[in-house]
């Protein structure tokens, strides 16, 4: 195993087998832990913290395997989509609460005739919205924001190197 499909370039350090293997092994577990922190109403943490952990996983991948392979893992279109989709998920669920209850609620309180209200009750549906809409939406937005900024900084370095060589 020679450390993935690294293209040897000038001025780029050789890949280390240990770092490659361990980061590839630990990457899915970081994502799993991030989702564990993000989803749910009982534990500590929440969207902001969980999104940061998810972003940390991707940043580890980008740092180890380079910006090119990182872009293959999470393309810019997907990243941009997540960035706005998180906010859309949050605002959309709140707006649906207002629409379904004919304006009786204040944003998320008392989710009206929300589809799951019949199954789990008013209080239960509020917990569902907190756990799977609000927190996930915040997490996605925070994750995408961190990753896009890290990518921008990483790309800039590479381009500056190219310019200097010329």
């Amino acid at each position, binding site marked *: 195993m020679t450390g993935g499909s690294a293209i040897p370039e000038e001025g780029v350090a050789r890949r280390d087998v240990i770092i490659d293997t361990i980061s590839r092994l630990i990457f899915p577990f970081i994502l799993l832990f991030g989702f564990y922190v993000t989803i749910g109403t009982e*534990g500590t943490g929440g969207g902001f913290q969980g999104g940061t952990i998810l972003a940390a996983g991707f940043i580890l991948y980008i740092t180890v395997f380079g910006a090119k392979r990182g872009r293959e893992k999470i393309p810019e279109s997907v990243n941009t989509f997540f*960035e706005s989709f998180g906010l859309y998920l949050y605002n959309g669920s709140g707006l649906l609460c207002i629409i379904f209850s004919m304006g009786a609620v204040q944003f998320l309180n008392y989710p009206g005739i929300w589809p799951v209200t019949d199954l789990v009750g008013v209080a239960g549906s509020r917990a569902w919205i*907190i756990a799977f809409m*609000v927190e996930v939406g915040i997490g996605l937005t925070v994750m995408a924001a961190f990753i896009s900024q890290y990518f921008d900084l990483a790309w800039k370095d590479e381009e500056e190197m190219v310019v200097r060589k010329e």
Partner: protein
Amino acid sequence: MKSLSSFGIVIVIILIGLSAYVIEDLPAFGDANSPANKYIRLFSMQSGAMEDQLEGGVIPIEIKNKIYDFGFNEENLYPTLEEGGYEIEWNEKNGGWDVLIEEGEIYFNEPIKYYCIKILGEELAVYRYNWPVRIIEWTEEETATPNAVTSGLADYRGFDTMGEETVILIGAIAVTMLLRRRGRL
């Protein structure tokens, strides 16, 4: 330039004094009975024969008028203290009576603690319960969430968190646009 810097020093001193004045009034953190966490004292008056009336489940007219004068009235869309619109319960823990009012919410139509009337020697002190009391006491029943911080962040104060997330999105977009200017700065 010298006048500008001296003006800045004066502003800094004023700000330090203001923050010291504010910090002095802050309650001790974690005290469940501190005003910010529990209730605010509105006023106190001579008790007289009011205690018997309160025992009978009726708020004396003097207390009612004074509460209205404070602004908790119909004009400001606060629930009124009409006959039969409230309940009075003796609260052993506080050493006073709790006034419970139904706000008429559609999906959670139960009486909520509004005022607390305590006996302090010869006087009756009237307190107004704070919003955190509802979050602390009712969060498990209203939102099926055992963690009051989560329900407070995402449900009761949902609009606040929505704004925070919008700030994050706009900040990310702005930083991305700045970083991609590539030599045009």
